[in-house]
């Protein structure tokens, strides 16, 4: 009897720890991202309700979530195309995301742009453009501006391994390094840029190997462990906030899909998918949470159920959102129409 009581107390204590709290947040946002993207990719896209390209971050949810947890609420984020969780963490609703994909007024760009090409400056979220790594110089400039203004916020910018081949990546990092701008760079190294494997993308073994060339520190982290990414993100954020300049974090992971919903990824050896399916960041975290006593399997099941219901409601909300009125076509090209 006493033993049972003691065990319950221990579990109770563990579940109240800061680690448990962090893990619960991580699990919540990874699950939300997974659920929202599953609906987009496997239902709404196939039903023809979602238009244009669909690029999801299945299996890579730990990266935006770990990084987002390491950011302060007033830090400025530059998500890339597999970082949906960052939007959720900053309070963008799943309904707004579905509406964005459906080209409705309720999306963040009011139908002006599609899929994850979205941002909201009031939430510290800067929208990407399609050219990979183009955000890096922009993020460098935002970081320079924060320093200019004497604010202690930092900027986090996200990109894939393929993006590190572009000149913008190199120019942006170099400028930020020279200026000691408060910038943390997160590389989602999922080993494929569309169909091109890493060894055809670069001749060095790691993206992190490039950092010494710019005189900045870098570290490599397990890209499927949100808590490890959080820890690395905290180190990077502290470094940047102390005025020491940019910090690069390479998150090693794997793209569990094609480049986009229309890409069956036949070029990826099946064996790689099988190996990496054992590393699902959500399954791994759930297992650890149960082992550590941070949550029960029942609580986790409830979380999934709650997110499923909320996602259903969000889709309904988005489908009620109207398409933009064609009469608004020419608005907002300039501050004043002329």
């Amino acid at each position, binding site marked *: 009897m006493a033993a049972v009581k003691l065990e319950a107390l221990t579990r109770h204590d563990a579940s109240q720890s800061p680690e448990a709290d962090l893990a619960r947040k991580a699990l919540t946002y990874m699950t939300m991202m997974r659920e929202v993207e599953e609906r987009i990719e496997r239902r709404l896209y196939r039903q023809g309700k979602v238009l244009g390209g669909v690029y999801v971050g299945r299996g890579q949810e730990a990266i935006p979530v770990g990084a987002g947890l390491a950011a302060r609420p007033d830090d400025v984020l530059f998500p890339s195309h597999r970082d949906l969780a960052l939007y959720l963490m900053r309070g963008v609703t799943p309904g707004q995301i579905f509406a964005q994909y459906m080209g409705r007024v309720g999306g963040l760009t009011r139908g002006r742009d599609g899929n994850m*090409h979205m941002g*909201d*400056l009031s939430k510290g979220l800067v929208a990407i453009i399609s050219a990979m790594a*183009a955000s890096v110089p922009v993020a460098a*400039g*935002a970081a320079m*501006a924060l320093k*200019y203004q004497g604010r202690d916020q930092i900027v986090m910018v996200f990109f894939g391994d393929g993006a590190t081949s572009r000149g913008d990546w190199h120019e942006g990092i170099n400028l930020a390094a020279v200026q000691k701008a408060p910038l943390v760079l997160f590389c989602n190294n999922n080993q494929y840029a569309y169909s091109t494997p890493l060894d055809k993308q670069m001749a060095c073994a790691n993206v992190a190997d490039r950092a010494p060339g710019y005189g900045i520190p870098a570290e490599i982290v397990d890209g499927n462990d949100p808590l490890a990414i959080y820890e690395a993100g905290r180190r990077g954020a502290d470094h940047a906030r102390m005025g020491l300049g940019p910090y690069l974090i390479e998150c090693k992971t794997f793209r569990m899909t094609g480049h986009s919903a229309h890409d069956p990824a036949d070029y990826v050896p099946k064996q790689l998918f099988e190996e990496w399916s054992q590393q699902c960041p959500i399954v791994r975290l759930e297992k650890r949470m149960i082992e550590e006593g941070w949550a029960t399997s029942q609580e986790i099941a409830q979380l999934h159920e709650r997110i499923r219901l909320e996602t259903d409601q969000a889709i309904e909300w988005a489908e009620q959102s109207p398409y933009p009125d064609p009469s608004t076509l020419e608005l907002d*090209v300039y501050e004043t129409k002329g």
Partner: protein
Amino acid sequence: MATTYLEAIREGLFEEMDRDPNVFLLGEDIGIYGGAFKVTAGMLDRYGPRRIVDTPISESAIVGAAIGASFMGLRPVAEMQFADFISCGFDQIVNFAAKCRYRWNAPAPMVVRAPCGGGIHGGPYHSQQNEAWFAHTPGLKVVLPATARDAKGLIKSAVRDNDPVIFFEHKALYRRVKEDLPQGDYTVPLGKANIHREGRHLSVITYSAMVHVADEAASIVAKEGLSVEVIDLRTLTPLDEDTILASVRKTSKAIVFHEATLTGGFGGEIAARITEKAFEYLDGPVMRLAAPDTPVPFSPTLEEAYLPNVDKLVAKIRQLAAY
């Protein structure tokens, strides 16, 4: 004392930096060296390295960083060493800066200064007049002053504008053009053309350095009794269509004249608008005079043959007047 076109731009930048602590400059060699053409000379001493940022040779990063800084509430003025190198930052300008307001309601108030134009023996990579690339991109404003007074008034308006502005400074005008400037804080609005010279018989619609060529040509044909009106557009985007059409309705004949190459040049757009909207007023075809469709050559004989000049314009004016 008369102020040069170059000094006018510098004065405008000084005044805007004094007025607004959010204004800062970034670019290659703009600090201790004062810029390739010395437009920013003296700025570093006055404002320090925080507000006068010497950058690596990275046009894409310069423009990208300006966009990012504008999102954070600053007012960046980026210098391209030559307008020719703006192509290295093209994606940031046409895909990022130009589209942010439309896409996600994030204005990018910034100025990209671009020393442009030929006549300085700069060859194919230091002479181009590439404004049409940007006039073809919705979301950008395109400004090309011809006079010292306008250079100052327009740079001040550009810095204050809430949209991205590409500001083309003609290198051949930097030290050749000077005048007494109005005292105090004045601006010249974007989107308002100037009737540089009034006339009755024929309109020459032009901008940038060619305004002065047109003025000289007009003085020559005036002796033959031909009264030529010279319209200085000052900005291509926004375009002051009203002033163009009013002039053509008055004179019934129009030559569109620019230093940029002919095909796909902005002159074609102006000619089309005149024919669409003032056709019934025309007493002859809308004619164009522009550089031929070649790169800008280096050797003096070739460059002279390339550049539009007073003789070529006078011949074109006589041809149209006789139509």
